[in-house]
């Protein structure tokens, strides 16, 4: 039994994880999702923007590789904005985000009957990262003369009176990489002091806390849990809420694996002197 446990074949564990993911997805059991303060801050800020029917800039910086975590955030934030008549300007710092955002805009705009040009505008992707933010910070319509479909941004109702980043009431960055702390804060928020909230993959979430405490960011949605909390706030459960069940179960499985692995290590393996 001892040897079987120590050099358990990797593929046996793979099957175990697959079951841990599929079974909970097939069933449903209630799990309490309590929105934390950082997620609520984004929700409240959008409510404030809605009160003065302002405009929000959303920067989509992710790819299909992080879709399961970020796409639910995109859908929830868009649904929240469209339901409260908040005008949305979308742009991408990652090329692969264009296709995913286009899908999200098509589905959510139909749900809330949001009109292109008067309720939302999509600018697509441009290269340049920090240079793009410097350019659009000071001369928005010069940097984006046309949107993704070729309409002049000077003619569209949403972007007519937007001349720079300070004209946006709220800037949200939904990111899989370090565009929030590597591009948006040093090259945009630092100069124009706009309110800045982010949704990011769980991998990037721990790195954002210094910026939250310093006030450079005013809200954070971290990973699938963050998306599920936002879905709870706008009470339209989606893939994130459904995903929390398997997520919870698999977390427990991983924790048990770590504990089991280490107990075996301390009982048997260490004497074998695998490492010091």
């Amino acid at each position, binding site marked *: 039994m001892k040897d079987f446990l120590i*050099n358990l074949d990797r593929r046996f564990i793979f099957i175990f994880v697959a079951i841990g993911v599929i079974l909970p997805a097939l069933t449903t059991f209630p799990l309490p999702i309590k929105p934390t303060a950082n997620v609520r801050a984004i929700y409240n800020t959008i409510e404030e923007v809605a009160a003065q029917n302002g405009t929000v800039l959303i920067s989509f910086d992710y790819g299909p590789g992080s879709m399961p975590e970020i796409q639910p955030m995109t859908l929830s934030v868009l649904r929240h904005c469209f339901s409260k008549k908040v005008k949305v300007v979308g742009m991408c710092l990652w090329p692969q985000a264009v296709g995913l955002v286009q899908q999200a805009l098509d589905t959510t705009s139909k749900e809330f009957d949001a009109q292109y040009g008067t309720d939302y505008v999509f600018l697509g992707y441009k290269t340049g990262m920090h240079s793009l933010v410097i350019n659009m910070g000071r001369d928005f319509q010069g940097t984006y003369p046309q949107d993704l479909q070729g309409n002049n941004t000077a003619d569209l109702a949403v972007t007519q009176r937007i001349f720079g980043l300070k004209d946006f009431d709220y800037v949200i960055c939904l990111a899989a990489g370090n565009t929030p702390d590597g591009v948006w804060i040093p090259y945009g928020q*630092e100069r124009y002091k706009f309110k800045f909230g982010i949704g990011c993959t769980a*991998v*990037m979430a721990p*790195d954002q806390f210094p910026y939250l405490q310093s006030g450079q960011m005013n809200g954070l949605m971290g990973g699938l849990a963050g998306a599920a909390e936002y879905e709870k706030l706008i009470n339209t459960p989606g893939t994130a809420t459904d995903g929390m069940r398997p997520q919870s179960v698999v977390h427990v499985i991983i924790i048990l694996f770590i504990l089991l692995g280490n107990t075996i290590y301390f009982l048997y393996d260490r004497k074998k002197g*695998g*490492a*010091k």
Partner: protein
Amino acid sequence: MRYILLCLTLLFCMCPVQAQQPTQIQTMDTPNDAGGSITLTWNRADLPPKSVYKIAIGESPNGPFYLATELPTTANLMSDDPATFGHGDETAQTHFFNITEYQDTNNTEKPLKLETDKTYYVQITTQLPNGQMLPSNISPATAIQNLFNKTKINNFILGTVFSLIILIAIYMARRHEMYIRRIAGLEALDEALGRATEMGKPVFFAHGLHPMGSVSTIAAVNILSRIARRTAEFNTELKVANNDPIVMAVSREVVKESYLNAGRPDAYNDDMVFLAATEQFSYAAAVDGMMVRERPAANIMMGYFYAESLLLAETGANIGAIQIAGTDSYTQLPFFITTCDYTLMGEELYAASAYLSREPKLMGSLKGMDVGKAFLLLTLVLGTLLATMGNQTLAHIFTAY
């Protein structure tokens, strides 16, 4: 006795003073901007609630005046904008307003923007709730383009001082030897190479996925050259798996040179440094396959790794190899720490590279950064102590306005 006198005087100035027009009016160009804006400051006065300040602006002293704005008497205190007006006590007692445009009554479709380098005349009137108007005298002002943003003075000084420290440190590093503390990771590296020689099994090396120009890959190649020297001396087999042709070419040069310096040119052949695969996962799978087949005694991973770090480290741990890793990719560090015997964390990778190569630019930078870290560290402690005792000046100096 003195105490009563004090109460009397206090009592006296509490009684409602007869409201008068705004006092201490100053108009000037708005600082730290590209022109097109005039700043008006005036003393805060005790006025009955719902009274209003009206600011008017005109192009000639007695010409038509147009309304720029209407302000409640509680708004726009200087203390709201410490970046421009600082943190003095008086800022809570003075109002300010930046005039950038005004409404020309005859053509009313768009407000007129203030022009730069043109003199305007500004007047501020206190309008009491009963409609009584108390206008101030008129004072001229001209908006000009500023050449230096004074709110960034702390940024400018900190940047200049730190840059000088770095450049001087690099200059000194070229002149004479500099001390760096011993890097524990490098000792672990030598121990691992020693173990590999005893067991007569190969040593594996991987660079991560960054291209040759990246600081992390340069550090990885510096460390590789030391490993190659050791494997040459100990006559141990070295295998360097690459995923980038340029990095492979540079690594071949470095390994060949190390074997030459160790006096073992014959022991070197090009096959030791090879292209395993180009794509992230195929690269990890290829290297894992080789590790399982050849069971190296030591697996060394230096450079900027992405998600493939776990695939390499897990296989290495399972075949019982001693693993030394070093990466400045903070998302992958946890995986190395829990799977490897020793991990060089973040900047330690650069320190190891400097320690080995003794290059002036690396040594100088390291020493200069040490001075910078010491300065920041002391400022934080001092700043917190002063702030706790109520003195916020240090905290105000270190604020990003």
